């Protein structure tokens, strides 16, 4: 840095000028509008309507090797169940190709001796083959078929005049914060983190890498503007773009997708603002280290976007990952944002969750900005 006195002193007027200029530039490129408005709407729509962990119905094949009154009543129970969409056959070999092609989730086989076996103890009258290529679906299908079977047995026992068999232990099932267990209730709030990551890390990394690539960054640094002013000037428009996008997403989540906002909007704004700063810091750091747009884009996809997707408890459970990966996840800023988002929307202002996460985010942001300042200085000197 030079000894020029105008250089060292922070000037509000210069910052204003810079911000105004950057703002115009942001508004002129229609792709920024796409990121701030179209992308959030698209993501919310996808998580609100498209992507869902909640099964609609399962396609099962039923093989009845020998028709009897018992097999008939079981077939009726299967047909009437809202969980299944059944295909029928007399021989399982007819249905196996459909299981291989993925058109059927499972095949239920009622063997020829089904009627004899059905009421005998310790027998296994029912055979089920499930497609294990998606283990979670396989486990759910198995569960639903077992439930169907137990219900049918109880019904049969009643209709034959037998006593109702009551299980000794039953479960009273209560789900907090999300009674209908709809996955969109936590996916929609979480997607705000993805949007802010895209604006903060990816877009910012690109914009600033472009300045380095074209040499305009050096030109700017040669003017009386100092680094702090320059950073504020560059980052302020994207910060506001991100916050606007967050506000839009929140309104859409509440109005269109009926997601409750049980915490306070002020806390939501505060937490989002801190995350936005962290994310901007990451984008800035990436662009400073790479200085080429193509590489900056690739690095921020690999180092910011994908981790925000995988390691933030947004879609995938952090606690179920191997311990080494859980350690990696501590380095991912989004990990400290998504749980706060889900909590503020679905539970309320739970400070034991929000405060530690805020502290971690601020710490990471400081590290990002500190490294950036150091690198910028050493590279120019």
């Amino acid at each position, binding site marked *: 840095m030079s000894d020029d006195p105008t250089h060292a002193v922070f000037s509000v007027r210069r910052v204003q000028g810079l911000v105004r200029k950057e703002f115009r530039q942001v508004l002129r*490129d229609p792709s920024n509008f*796409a990121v701030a408005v*179209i*992308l959030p709407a698209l*993501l919310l729509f996808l*998580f609100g309507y*498209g*992507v869902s*962990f909640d*099964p609609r119905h399962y396609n099962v094949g039923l093989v009845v090797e020998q028709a009897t009154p018992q097999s008939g009543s079981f077939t009726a129970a299967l047909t009437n169940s809202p969980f299944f969409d059944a295909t029928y056959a007399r021989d399982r070999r007819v249905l196996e*190709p459909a299981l*291989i*092609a*993925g058109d059927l989730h499972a095949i239920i086989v009622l063997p020829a001796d089904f009627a004899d076996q059905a009421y005998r*103890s*310790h027998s*296994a009258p*029912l*055979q*089920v*083959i499930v*497609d*294990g*290529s998606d*283990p*979670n*679906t396989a*486990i*759910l299908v198995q569960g639903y078929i*077992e439930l169907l079977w*137990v219900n049918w047995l109880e019904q049969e026992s009643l209709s034959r005049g037998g006593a109702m068999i009551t*299980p*000794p*232990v039953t*479960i009273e099932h*209560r*789900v*907090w*914060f999300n009674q209908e267990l709809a*996955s969109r*209730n936590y996916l929609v709030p979480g997607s705000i983190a993805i949007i802010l990551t*895209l604006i903060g890390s990816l877009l910012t990394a*690109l*914009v600033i890498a*472009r300045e380095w690539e074209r040499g305009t960054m050096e030109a700017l640094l040669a003017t009386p503007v100092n680094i702090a002013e320059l950073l504020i000037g560059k980052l302020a428009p994207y910060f506001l773009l991100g916050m606007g996008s967050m506000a839009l997403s929140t309104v859409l989540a509440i109005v269109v997708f009926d997601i409750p906002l049980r915490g306070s909007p002020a806390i939501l704004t505060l937490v989002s603002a801190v995350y936005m700063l962290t994310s901007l810091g990451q984008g800035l750091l990436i662009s400073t280290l790479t200085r*080429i*747009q*193509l*590489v900056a*884009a*690739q690095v921020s996809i690999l180092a910011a976007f994908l981790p925000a997707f995988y390691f933030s408890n947004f879609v995938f*459970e952090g*606690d179920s*990952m191997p311990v080494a*990966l859980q350690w*990696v996840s501590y380095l991912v800023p989004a990990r400290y944002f998504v749980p706060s988002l889900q909590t503020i929307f*679905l539970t309320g202002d*739970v400070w*034991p*969750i929000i405060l530690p996460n805020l502290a971690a985010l601020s710490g990471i942001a400081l590290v990002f900005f500190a490294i950036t300042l150091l690198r910028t200085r050493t590279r120019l000197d």
Partner: protein
Amino acid sequence: MLTRLFALIKKELLASARDRQTRLVVLIAPPFLLLIYVFAITQDVTNISLGVVDRDQGRYSREILDRVVGSSRFQEILYFESEAELGAAIDAQRVLVGLHFQDGFSRRILRRHSSNFQLLLDGRRSNAAQIVSGYIYRITESYNLELLDEAGITMPTAVISRTWFNANSEPLWSATPALFAVLASIVGFMVSALAIARERELGTFEQLLVSPLTPFEILIGKTLPALLIALASSAVMLAFSVFLLDVPLRGDLAALFLAMVVFLLSIIGIGLFISSIVRTQQQAVIGLFIYMIPAVLLSGYATPVANMPDWLQLVTQTNPITHFIVICKGIFLKDLPASDIWAHTWPMIVIAIATLSIGTWLFNRRLE
């Protein structure tokens, strides 16, 4: 013409191989990401922390708890005095699930009444909560059969299930082929859309245009190396899947490679299409995301396609990633017959032809 084309392809490949950053990002990073992320996306829920309030302290509540704690899925069990304390722990996400046994739980069973305990789940993580409640229901069900057996009431011991293709429900087996497909598509986009947008912004593309090469030759000269690089990266990922992650490759490797070529061509076609309608690299990246995010999310990669509304399932038929995931999972795990592979390959051929020719046409039009 062929020698010119050959020279261009050779130059592109050499340039990519010499560039340290390209090597790192396109060739080396994706296979390692496969190794890391595959463990992140396995949705088998383990290491669950469980909160317990046992006001009963009787034989039956203890026996149920023993069975739950004995399951290797639960990592940490925290005991609480009251439901309010348990509730606070769920709020703060210290536990995912709570079990609450009320006073007199065991007494009711002894009197041959049906007795219940409460299962409290955190709906913020409803998918995990649902899977966990499945475990607890199973444990309770088999415990019920034991109790009934003790009381002299026997039921048919339910259902014999066999899981085909993945007998031990190994989550890595299904996650790896799907992640492989997604990472291959990311590589395909990086080497096509982003690379071409960069050349245009830097002006090197214009330099090529004043060379004796025709626009068509230039496009082939850019597409073919991109395809080769993406194929190389995919081949490494494939080898990692089989040798390091131990996923069985039961089907025809040659068929998988053929499908991969078609798939990457369709991705490169889409990349070409995007790069032909944008002006800057920034716009290319944004265009890419606007296409990639829905394409990956609706591909059946994170959640089953069958859970989507019907009309959206129709839309996913135009998505090459959807088809390639079916093919990958099929060839890896099921030894998918050729007819089924073809059923998912021809839509990708149509997509590849459509996007490559529209992309070429748009390119030509803008260049003239």
